[in-house]
């Protein structure tokens, strides 16, 4: 199967038509998605119409942009005009946004074809894509296993070739975790690099939209398209646009790579550690130097992350009253408070309600200083810890996930046990640093991801390190047996 870069080039040169390429993808979805359940919505007719439009442009000799005809699957928490955007929640089951998110406008301007919306944990709150109102997504490598989350549908669609590339969102690992569990590349950009306008908020000081792809090149290509300043998002940073394809250099000589002791401690499975250390050896062989470092605040990152994320969630999700849009119980009698509270019990799943209630608790009088304010102060200490490390090393590497993909249903009844899976991904969100996960091997047929964290706004270096690793290994060439 061609990469997005190859597809776009072939369509621009009219070697293949956008329509025939899209049809082959739609056939693939038809054939296998009932097993994987990567999609919540597929917009077949609209996508075909758009593909024909692009073919027409090509025939007329009009200039086509860098994603010409490339099929993109979009996580279902990113608003798409005229295409329902559900957040995999009953609350938004029938919500059809009247506008496009900025990233969607950018994709359309780059001549991409929006294929459909992918399944996710409800409101992006999860690590397994099991909390979707529409049912779990299955890991294409082993259908009994979780695909990771919360962007599980996006990663599963990409690796099983139901889409060329996909967009996800990452609040505490939600792009990198499924990238690791499905053996794709997934990048969380620096906070502020990609506009969040049109991304349905969960924890707005932590999250970013980012690409998932089968190769580092496609990931860089998609990042180049979606990044850039947007006056509609006041946290979007005004920096000159970059072409991230130019950072794809197969060379890590003289690069300093930090391996934090805390990323290899108890709780991280031996086989996972082994593959990541093997990746470190590879980098040394290629001329980089690896250094053991320590991030002593790591021990508190997960607790601080969850307190902040839940607090922000309780505020962001207060808007769902079932009045202006969203789930509304038809037989709902009573005053406003009663109706409001009932709409939210029925409209939200258990994990969403848990996080809203705990967040409300952490922000409430008497507990504000003990939980929320304390967590924000620890966030400062974690940032300082990372800043200090980045004075000595260019990138930090470790496993993306501490454990291998586990069985669907295995952990879902134990929220705390699930939260623990995010221990290695949340620091990048707390600090705003960019981070990428790339395939680094398999254990009994299950994928393992290597995480590379960089300095803020230095996506170039993590892409270069990821690209070099990919060019000197074979893991990205494997496909699931589906």
């Amino acid at each position, binding site marked *: 199967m061609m990469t997005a870069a190859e597809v776009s080039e072939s369509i621009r040169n009219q070697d293949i038509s956008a329509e025939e390429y899209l049809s082959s993808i739609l056939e693939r979805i038809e054939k296998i998605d009932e097993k994987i359940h990567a999609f919540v919505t597929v917009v077949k007719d609209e996508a075909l119409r758009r593909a024909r439009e692009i073919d027409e442009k090509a025939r007329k000799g009009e200039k086509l942009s860098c994603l010409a005809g490339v099929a993109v699957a979009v996580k279902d928490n990113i608003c798409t005009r005229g295409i329902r955007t559900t957040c995999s929640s009953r609350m938004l089951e029938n919500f059809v946004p009247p506008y496009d998110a900025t990233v969607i406008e950018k994709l359309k301007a780059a001549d991409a074809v929006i294929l459909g919306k992918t399944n996710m944990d409800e409101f992006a709150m999860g690590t397994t894509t099991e909390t979707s109102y529409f049912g779990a997504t299955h890991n294409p490598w082993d259908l009994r296993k979780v695909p990771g989350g919360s962007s599980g549908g996006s990663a599963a669609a990409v690796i099983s070739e139901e889409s060329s590339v996909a967009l996800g969102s990452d609040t505490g690992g939600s792009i990198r975790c499924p990238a690791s569990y499905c053996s794709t590349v997934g990048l969380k950009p620096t906070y502020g690099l990609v506009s969040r306008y049109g991304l349905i908020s969960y924890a707005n000081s932590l999250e970013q939209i980012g690409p998932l792809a089968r190769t580092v090149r496609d990931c860089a290509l998609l990042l180049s398209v979606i990044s850039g300043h947007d006056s509609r998002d006041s946290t979007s*940073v005004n920096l000159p646009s970059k072409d991230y394809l130019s950072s794809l250099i197969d060379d890590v000589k003289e690069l300093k790579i930090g391996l934090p002791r805390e990323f290899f401690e108890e709780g991280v499975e031996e086989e996972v550690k082994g593959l990541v250390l093997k990746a470190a050896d590879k980098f040394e062989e290629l001329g980089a130097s690896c250094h053991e470092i320590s991030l002593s605040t790591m021990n508190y990152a997960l607790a601080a992350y969850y307190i902040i994320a839940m607090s922000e969630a309780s505020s962001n999700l207060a808007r769902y009253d079932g009045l202006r849009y969203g789930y509304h119980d038809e037989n709902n009698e009573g005053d406003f408070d009663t109706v409001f509270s009932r709409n939210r*019990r029925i409209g939200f799943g258990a994990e969403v309600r848990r996080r809203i209630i705990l967040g409300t608790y952490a922000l409430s009088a008497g507990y504000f200083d003990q939980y929320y304010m304390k967590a924000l102060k620890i966030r*400062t200490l974690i940032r300082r810890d990372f800043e200090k490390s980045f004075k000595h090393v260019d990138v930090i590497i470790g496993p993306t996930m501490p454990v291998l993909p586990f069985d669907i249903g295995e952990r879902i009844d134990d929220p705390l046990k699930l939260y623990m899976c995010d221990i290695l991904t949340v620091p990048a969100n707390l600090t705003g640093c960019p981070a990428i996960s790339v395939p680094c091997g398999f254990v009994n047929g299950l994928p393992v991801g290597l995480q590379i964290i960089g300095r803020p706004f230095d996506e170039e270096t993590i892409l270069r390190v990821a690209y070099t690793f990919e060019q000197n290994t074979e893991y990205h060439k494997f496909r699931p047996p589906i």
Partner: protein
Amino acid sequence: MSGSRRVSVEEVRHIAELAHIELTKEEETLFTEQFNRILDYFSKIDEVNTEDVPPTYHVLDLVNVYREDEAQEPQIKEDPLKNAPKREGRFFKSSRIV
């Protein structure tokens, strides 16, 4: 740590009310048990000395981003109330508030 309950069922019921989320009886019990385990884990952060440490609300050093107050073409061209479950003309329809 163990055995010390941080929240009671009554407290959980009260916070859920503040958050405007109805809970069933079974959920009140289940959530209370789960919250106590989660809050026990959160209490780790008590160990950290954060005296004189400022909070990080936000990783960017941006404050008050302004733009010119100029009228622009509306991005939303269709009926902005189209997703409302109940409406009357140009208005959302709500249950009794007072």
